[in-house]
């Protein structure tokens, strides 16, 4: 090898090390709590990626948790009430959530900016109230207990979801990996540039012949599908669905994870934001003083926003470190996202 190009190899090595670490994590630790934290963070990261994708088109959805609820309830109702096996109903959950997202998007995305945020907020609350009041279908606040995925027999051993969280962990890795690949490719592709152009200057983009509504609806639908998967899987992992699990505060949480993690990277920011904030939340709630976790959580988010350079999140610290090590000049390749100016 005549020339070792560290600029391309070091990021790849770092990513490979990270992936290896996550793949062998169940061997390193057998703690159920650690695994649970990672599983939940991964699932939230999937939802956060959906939010970031919508944000890339310049819209600010405040009802993402509603799509998690839609996915979760679809999967649970299909398995419990209709007796459809787990895996088909899991797939149907994502598809149903995506279709609803598309229908909502077709109607709602005509109005942009803050109005879109408020409508999605109202939609999220409507889904929650609906789940709370439709006792016959959703069992109201008592919640549904979704059955666990069936045991998968393999030659030599069997994957038993009931025995330990390890199968859940690996399936989460699979789901998150597929989602990351999809979103990463979207970010690199022509579609991703189109989304960025919508955020940067919608009027100019429209005059260039880009159909605004079409691409906004595409982004919203893709986000809806994966958020639905995340919701279905999360409810299944926790073995309970109640309406309050996916309310306005969870939508807000998704939003915070996305912004704190950083929106310049579609995948990395989501994982960092979700893992950091979810872990913080879990560990703060163990503090002996009651209610201090909300105070510290809020303070942490505000401090991150205040002290990071504007327009960046935690994920951009990597780029900063990189430039510091290799003394590269500052360059801002990051697309300017979300011009949320109200016309």
């Amino acid at each position, binding site marked *: 090898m005549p020339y070792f190009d560290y600029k391309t190899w070091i990021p790849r090595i770092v990513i490979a090390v990270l992936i290896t670490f996550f793949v062998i994590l169940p061997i390193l630790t057998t703690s159920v709590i650690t695994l649970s934290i990672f599983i939940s963070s991964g699932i939230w990261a999937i939802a956060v990626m959906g939010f970031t994708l919508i*944000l890339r088109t310049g819209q*600010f959805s405040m009802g993402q948790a509603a799509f998690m609820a839609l996915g979760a309830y679809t999967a649970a109702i299909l398995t419990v009430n209709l007796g459809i096996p787990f895996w088909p109903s899991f797939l149907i959950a994502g598809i149903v959530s995506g279709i609803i997202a598309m229908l909502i998007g077709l*109607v*709602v995305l*005509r*109005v942009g900016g*803050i*109005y879109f945020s*408020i*409508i999605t*907020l*109202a*939609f999220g*609350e*409507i889904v929650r*109230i*609906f789940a*709370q*009041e439709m006792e016959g279908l959703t069992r109201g606040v008592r919640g549904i207990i979704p059955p666990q995925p069936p045991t998968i027999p393999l030659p030599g051993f069997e994957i038993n979801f009931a025995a330990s969280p390890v199968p859940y962990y690996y399936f989460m890795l699979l789901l998150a990996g597929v989602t990351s690949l999809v979103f990463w490719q979207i970010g690199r592709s022509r579609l991703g540039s189109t989304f960025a152009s919508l955020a940067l200057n919608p009027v100019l983009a429209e005059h260039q012949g880009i159909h605004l509504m079409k691409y906004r609806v595409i982004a919203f639908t893709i986000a809806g599908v994966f958020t639905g998967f995340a919701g279905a899987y999360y409810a299944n992992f926790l073995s309970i669905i109640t309406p309050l699990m996916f309310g*306005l505060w969870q939508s*807000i949480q998704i*939003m*915070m994870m996305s*912004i*704190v993690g950083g929106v310049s990277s579609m995948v990395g920011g989501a994982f960092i934001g979700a893992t950091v904030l979810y872990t913080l939340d879990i560990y703060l709630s163990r503090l002996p*003083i*009651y*209610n*201090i*976790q*909300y*105070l*510290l*959580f*809020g*303070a942490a*988010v*505000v401090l991150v*926003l*205040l002290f990071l350079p*504007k*327009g960046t999140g935690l994920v951009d610290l990597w780029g900063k470190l990189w430039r510091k090590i290799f003394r590269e000049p500052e360059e801002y390749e990051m697309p*300017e*996202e*979300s*011009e*949320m*100016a*109200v*016309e």
Partner: protein
Amino acid sequence: MPPAAILIDGLVQSCIFMTMAFGMVLVFSILGILNWAHGQFYMLGAFVVYYAITAAGIPFPLSILISGMVVGGLGMLVEKYIIERLNIPGYGMLYVTVATLALIFFFEGAAGMAFGLMDKGLATVLPGVLDLGSFSVSYQKIAVIIFTIVILAAMYIVLNRTKIGLAIRAAAQEPVAASLYGISVKRVSLIVMGIGCALAAMAGGVMAPVYTVSPFMGRIPMIFSMLAIIIGGLGSLTGAIVGGIILGFLNSVIAYYVSYLSEFVLFLLVIVILLVRPQGLFGASIK
């Protein structure tokens, strides 16, 4: 026709939503951001009034003024140290939204730690009811209505008859031109944020005897006043008042007929209004 008590209740609720929405719109028209933690200033105001009355024995009207001053000052601090530093062109809306949403958790956690999670009653203030034949109204609710009329009248006078009101209106219309004429838009932002938070705090304070005081009491008024300014038209003070009245009355009247589904109907109504008229009822047309 629902009974008069329901209408009175609707009127009381619309008074609160109006006062809060008014402050929010004022902040929006100068700073260009929505303060999502407005409901928490409402909650803090209620706590200040509660402790001013029970611990210090200050009379009710005076303690409302005190809560307005204390929480208004807090709002100014939030503006100076958080919002102003995050409100940069291009990213402002996004960052301020997330920061103020985080402040919701911060203030609720702080209030829960300092004051406890128990619901606190303040029913001993202004006891008694006004008997109006077929129905009666408690003095506490009358106090809310009178307070709202006084505060809106005062705001009208401040905005239209004083120098600072002129500065606020100028800065809302044309910030650049206003600063050319010697108006410090920064200072106007600070004052407006103080006024907005003080309005929310005083609304919470006057509402404290009617309902109970708890760290989570700010969430519902926050969401409803947010919806009120959106359907009224963002940036329009008339819209804030009309939106507050619509939501307050509908909330109690619909609840009378369909009980738990009232929020469902309200949110649906908001969506329909926004789809038919995206700029809100009183907002200027976007195009």
